[in-house]
């Protein structure tokens, strides 16, 4: 039996495609299931750390506190963040989502995008980063300055429709928006890494590149518009010798070879229902070159099955993904509000009990 590892050792061993003591565990969720889990464990609504400990989560993250001026006016009925993204609460059968709306830059000119207020990397307090890393010292710490997330995040301000048009037509306003956001996030990340003094263990970025059926954009567009912008981010992480994890919902394995060339060696979220994302396919095709994070479907037995079905499903995924190491147990993207609490509790219990090497 492998000796007991710290969370940090466990995650970094898996990232290096070696077998740790048990499969590393991560947790991402929507507000409804998050609240129900805290109720289940008798935790306060804001006890995020308590929930992570209860679930055996091996990952943590650091991010600096924003201390600058308010950048965008409040709008009644909306939540407006510092990027100027408008959200409104849209309820569904089992909870709700803060959905993007109003799209204030939909038809903005290049000049308007250039003038759009965005957070200044100077206006963050990096002084607590090292201490937070130290406090999380036994865990694997994510030091990302932001996901990047060109397509989604531009879509939040310009609509997805316009964003896809931007990428195809080289619209200077859309591309400037992507560049401005990406450059700010890279700069914030650089300052986090500098402030962390070695306390950060990996960088997590993300770009949703697929629908359930195939790529959202062509390889040509990916290589022209997306890849060069991420390469700067990847180069920063590599300068600090940090592994890079890429969040990619939908059918995204079509881009994995390019990811590897860019220096990205860990793929997240791995929606097993999407085209060319079946666990066995990914393990066979990329398992000798990439590590994986995710793969527990949030649209399968964990959401719609019984407890026994959810447990059996999680075991099946672990049986495929764990051998030889290189796998971190986590939901695809985030647990949704329609997942029964007992299924999610069982999901994390089975990872801890059956995830041993």
């Amino acid at each position: 039996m492998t000796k007991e590892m710290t969370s940090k050792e466990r995650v970094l061993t898996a990232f290096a495609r070696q077998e740790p003591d048990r499969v590393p565990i991560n947790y991402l969720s929507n507000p409804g299931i998050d609240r129900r889990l805290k109720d289940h464990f008798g935790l306060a609504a804001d006890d995020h750390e308590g929930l992570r400990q209860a679930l055996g989560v091996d990952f943590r993250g650091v991010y600096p506190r924003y201390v600058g001026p308010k950048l965008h006016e409040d709008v009644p009925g909306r939540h407006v963040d510092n990027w100027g993204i408008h959200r409104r609460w849209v309820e569904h059968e089992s909870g709700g989502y803060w959905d993007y709306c109003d799209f204030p830059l939909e038809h903005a000119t290049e000049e308007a995008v250039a003038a759009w207020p965005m957070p200044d990397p100077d206006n963050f307090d990096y002084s607590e980063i090292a201490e937070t890393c130290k406090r999380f010292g036994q865990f694997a710490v994510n030091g990302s300055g932001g996901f990047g997330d060109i397509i989604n995040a531009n879509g939040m301000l310009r609509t997805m429709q316009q964003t896809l048009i931007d990428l195809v037509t080289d619209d200077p306003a859309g591309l400037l928006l992507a560049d401005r956001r990406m450059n700010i996030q890279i700069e914030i990340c650089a300052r986090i890494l500098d402030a962390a003094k070695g306390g950060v263990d990996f960088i997590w970025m993300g770009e949703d590149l697929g629908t359930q059926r195939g790529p959202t954009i062509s390889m040509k567009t990916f290589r022209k518009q997306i890849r060069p912008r991420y390469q700067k981010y990847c180069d920063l992480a590599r300068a600090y010798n940090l592994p890079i994890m890429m969040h990619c919902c939908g059918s995204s394995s079509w881009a994995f070879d390019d990811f590897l060339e860019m220096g990205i060696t860990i793929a997240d979220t791995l929606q097993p229902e999407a085209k060319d994302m079946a666990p066995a396919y990914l393990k066979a095709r990329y398992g000798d070159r990439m590590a994986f994070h995710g793969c527990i479907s949030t649209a399968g037995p964990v959401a719609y099955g019984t407890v026994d079905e959810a447990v059996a499903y999680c075991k099946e995924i672990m049986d495929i993904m764990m051998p030889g190491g290189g796998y971190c147990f986590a939901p695809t993207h985030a647990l949704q509000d329609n997942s029964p609490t007992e299924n999610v509790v069982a999901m994390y219990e089975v990872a801890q009990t059956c995830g041993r090497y």
Partner: protein
Amino acid sequence: MPALTKRERVLRTVRFEETDRTPLYDIFQNDAVIEYYGGEKLTAENGDRVKSAAVGRVLDMTRMPTGPDTPRIERREDGIVFRYERWTLWIIERPWHDTRGLIEWIKREIARAEAAVYDRAYAERFHDSLRGWLAAYAAADPTGRGDPTVMIVESGVGLTEMYWAVGTETFCYLMADYPDLVEEWLDARNRAELRRVAAIADPRLFPIALTYDDIAYKTAPLFSPKWLRRYWFPRLKKLNDAWHGRDTYCLFHSDGNLFPVLDDLVVAGIDGLNPLEVLAGMSVGKVRQKYPKLFLTGGIDVSQLLSFGAPDEVRAACRQAIAEADGRGYFLGSTTELHWDVKLENAIAMFETAWETDQASRPSPPTG
């Protein structure tokens, strides 16, 4: 069987009667195809003429007759600004900046639809234009009989232009927040189209109308069947009834997987279905098996097969589609249009598969 005219071939196909060969229905938006069959280099200036020559030589039935656009930016009467490229256009500016502005714009659009006049003068202009295209097709007829390609006329229920104008995401919010306004707008557009039908219908000039709205994407309808049944299907039925009342067949067009609402489409009175997006599961065989009385058009995948495949693969797909239709009630063609990515050799392979049973109507490549 003696060679039929294009119109005879089209109408016999619509009626599931025997034909001399499988008819071809398509839209040409591909320079290589147009230049090959039109015999000239294609420009924005000669586009209508050269495209008409190519259509007249090749196709039994078509729509969207114009040649390539001159690239430009143009503000439409409704205030929306478009960028035009040779074969496509997209919105670059909308004339509102917030929800209040959008609602005011929609109210003006409703008023514009209510005020639209389709009188005798409109009908004469429309018919004259149509006769011009038919004459150009007739002049290019490879048999020398002056046999024109059949033109079908587009007739929308009204929804596509609404979500296109507003933008997909904003339209979703509009449907949720202002359902009565959306219905009022759809109804005004639908009633305007019914007036247009009454003015222009003439089965001697065009025996088939393309009733349409793009209501589906690859996996499912874009709108919930419940929403469609409440707001949209009754208006599609009115439109189909209006055309049927004027002896015109209704070929319904929507991209995507229509199976979840195909029963409703049939009840709404469609006679045929286009474009049978095979990658959305709408194969000729599957649709024919379930809905044997619908005449079918399209079914040859343009997004992958015609653009990136090989001629042998295209021929095989065409033969399979014709076989699945059992040789009746089926127009061979792409899943909507031959766009600029289609390889010339693949388009030729598709046409030749239709012509292979009828050497007489096969056009030789133009010289010069």
